[in-house]
């Protein structure tokens, strides 16, 4: 049937959603049993192009409902309501080692969703589109306020939920890449937590007191419940979270979430000491056949010496560990096993919850954003760029992100909103 004799209707609801909200994508008014390709296109702030696609066949009514119908192939297959987002990957011809990260948390990701005739797998930019719509994906809900923090020498960004408060607080710590990463705290604020993104790797010799100062800034904010503060960390940020919670008298979180973290670190010094210690094991760096860097062995074997790992037996608050079993960057599964053993020995393992995901990698981020198996990495303060192997396979990793995020929010709500004083 000639396409100029019919016009299909493409709709996405909601057309403006939070990054972790599901959407419903529908095609109507096409001929029955007709092959179509659903396509997603995203331009990053750096000008790179990301795309995803799925092959569908319309039903007897001429409809496709992405939430209910299976994709028969493409960058994802099966019934995957959000596949068009989580399976986004750099378009052919892109620079290598790309990772999708939104720097400006106040503006939305803009995704163009389109329908193409037949089952296409490439050359989308050269083909005629049957229909397309724009979809916005926001890290910030309406009314969330973004506040620059510069007091007391602390550099960070505080995101406050709308409303009078007071709200539970979160200190959000990213990994060894450094910088001020705002999108996750913005999203956490959209879920009711006053969240502080902390820039802690600006200087190589950051003191432990820096984190205590930041914690105090958060506690003292008039809209934050000072006794209801948690820590959320990813990668090296998890190491910091564990270290501070056990050894600092000032930082007494009500709960901790450690994503892709390890307790293995030089104890009793500053972060610089930890980095120096890791650097000593450089020779344990491995490379895969694509010359991507595998760093997980640098912390192995798990030490028995308590000066080389955080004594999690001393933890006094609930701890949620999120583990990707295919993590090639850090020995997260081994660390989680050791932490469990230590806590069982110390009698505080009732505080521990471990979420372990087969075939998920290191970068377990908020859901429905693209997975990066290997990407460019530059340690803070260094000029040397590597392609680090993070690990994980697209579909299992994306499922892990969705499940872990939901459970993380439940854990934070339970410990910071619901529990009695």
């Amino acid at each position, binding site marked *: 049937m000639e396409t100029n004799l019919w016009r299909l209707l493409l709709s996405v609801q909601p057309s*403006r959603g939070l990054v972790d909200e599901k959407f419903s994508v529908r095609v109507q*008014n096409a001929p029955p049993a007709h092959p179509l390709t659903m396509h997603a296109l995203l331009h990053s702030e750096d000008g790179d192009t990301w795309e995803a696609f799925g092959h569908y066949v319309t039903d007897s009514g001429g409809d496709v409902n992405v939430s209910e119908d299976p994709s028969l192939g493409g960058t994802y297959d099966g019934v995957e309501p959000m596949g068009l987002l989580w399976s986004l990957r750099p378009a052919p011809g892109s620079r290598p080692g790309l990772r999708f990260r939104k720097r400006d948390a106040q*503006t939305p990701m803009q995704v163009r969703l389109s329908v193409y005739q037949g089952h296409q797998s490439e050359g989308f930019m050269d083909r005629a589109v049957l229909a*397309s719509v*724009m979809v916005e994906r926001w890290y910030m809900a309406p009314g969330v306020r973004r506040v620059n923090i510069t007091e007391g020498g602390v550099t960070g960004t505080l995101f406050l939920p709308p409303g009078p408060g*007071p709200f539970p607080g979160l200190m959000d710590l990213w990994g060894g890449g450094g910088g001020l990463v705002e999108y996750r705290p913005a999203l956490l604020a959209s879920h009711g937590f006053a969240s502080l993104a902390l820039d802690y790797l600006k200087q190589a010799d950051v003191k432990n007191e820096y984190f205590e100062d930041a914690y105090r800034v958060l506690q003292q904010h008039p809209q934050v419940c000072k006794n209801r503060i948690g820590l959320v960390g990813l990668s090296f940020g998890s190491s910091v979270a564990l270290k501070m919670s056990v050894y600092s008298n000032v930082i007494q979180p009500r709960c901790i979430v450690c994503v892709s973290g390890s307790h293995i670190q030089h104890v009793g010094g500053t972060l610089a000491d930890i980095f120096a210690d890791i650097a000593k094991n450089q020779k344990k760096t491995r490379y895969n056949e694509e010359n991507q860097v595998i760093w997980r062995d640098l912390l192995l074997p798990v030490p028995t010496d308590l000066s080389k790992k955080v004594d999690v037996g001393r933890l006094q608050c609930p701890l949620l560990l999120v583990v990707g079993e295919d993590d090639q960057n850090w020995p997260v599964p081994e660390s989680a096993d050791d932490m469990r053993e230590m806590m069982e020995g110390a009698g505080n393992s009732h505080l521990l919850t471990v979420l372990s995901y087969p075939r998920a990698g290191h970068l377990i981020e908020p859901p429905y954003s693209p997975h990066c198996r290997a990407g460019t990495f530059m340690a803070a303060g260094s000029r040397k760029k590597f392609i680090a192997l993070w690990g994980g396979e697209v579909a299992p990793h994306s499922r892990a992100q969705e499940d872990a995020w939901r459970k993380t929010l439940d854990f934070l709500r339970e410990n910071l909103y*619901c529990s*009695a004083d």
Partner: protein
Amino acid sequence: MSWRSCFYFLRAAHKTLYTLQEQLGLLGRSGIRPSSTMAQTVTPILSVLPTRGLVDEKFKVALENLPPRFPVTLHSLHQSEDKDYWEAFGYYVSDDRGRVTVSEDASLGGTYKGVEPMGLLWSMHPVPGSRTGLRLRKMDVQSPMVVLISAYKGHAFEGFREQPPLASALTERWYMAPGVQRIDIREGGVIGTIFIPPGPGPFPGVLDMWGGGGGLVEYRSALLASHGFVSLALDYLSPKVAVADDQSLVYFEKAFNIIQQHPQVIKDRVGICGLCLGASVTLNVAAYSESVSPRCCVCISGSHVLPAAKSLSYVINDGYKHMDKLLVDEQNRMVWRHAILPITTNPDEKLDMGRIKCPLLLVNGDDDQSKATVESAEDIAKMMRAAGNEHLLTTLNYHDAGHLIEPPYTPHFRASNFIIQHLQQKVLVLWGGKTKPHADAQEDSWQKILSFLREHLYPCPSSSIPQAKL
């Protein structure tokens, strides 16, 4: 319209909202901790999903982490572009798990009752102490309506500003979907705004006309474009346009052609939608134009009782001439419905509906106090039956709905201020309708209008002949 200017609008909207929260004392300033009986212990969590929706999308409002069986009031607050405040509220009691789910639980009182997922929007009314005769209309469609939803302790019906809420959330309601383009039209004397859906097209088109209040009202067109129709909101009554004394339909035909000739419009799939006087114009064009043929027409709260060969200004003035039939009720509100009653039997005083050649959808409220639309619809059916084209007609009559049947989930007002253009006189007009039935009518009719337009304007693969009825 660039994305940059879009974000400026959004920031401005957030600024308004920030100001709104400040004015309501909802923000703690340094050193001043907002007081709350819940203080540092349990705080409820209020969520509205989606956080940003189209005006006709439903949302889910939920409250968690309350004590069990706890009375709360859910409250909505909006500040209009005219700076008036509108509010709605419903009384709830949390379940055993400390939750309130608005889409499933019944409101026990307030501005709406029962299980009403969207009650916090459609039952809004001006806050006590407001100016009278207000009507809520969004004139800037490129920014959203921002609504503050809050939860208060207990069942309150006033004094919302004096006590701090337990929790608040903000939601945005948009007339324009992302990617919809807005273009000013100033072409060949035609004044209007065209809205184009995202995507390559081509799309069907709709000429969209409002009523005798005049001006350029864009929101319905913006929403139609968000549903895949190229829509032209037409200004046909302001002095700039000077069409009022034009006896022919040329202005409307020109506007129709502008849509047809747009490179992204399917030429033979352009319809017309009108409300009130706009509906009368729609019928006039559909019946008498020799150069344009709409593929289908939607007439909301309209009538065919107007002399065909006369100009618009004649028609309008003529209406006001029947002063003996224009009532003023005990609250000084103009009741205009009797002006055309009884429906004339003189064929020169009404449009010949036997000349209609396309599917026609009439949407009316039987409590319309401004125009005798139900009686007109009956007469239209009679005329079409006699002429043999009744198969083209579909009529939707909504019990206890009034005159202003608008897109859903926007507030109902039984009367409001109205300026009689050519007299420059401000009066209070009774539109009619009871809030809940009127809100239901808006929700139902909008879905049916969209289905009707899709059916007749979107070429569908199963047949190339449009079906006449819904």
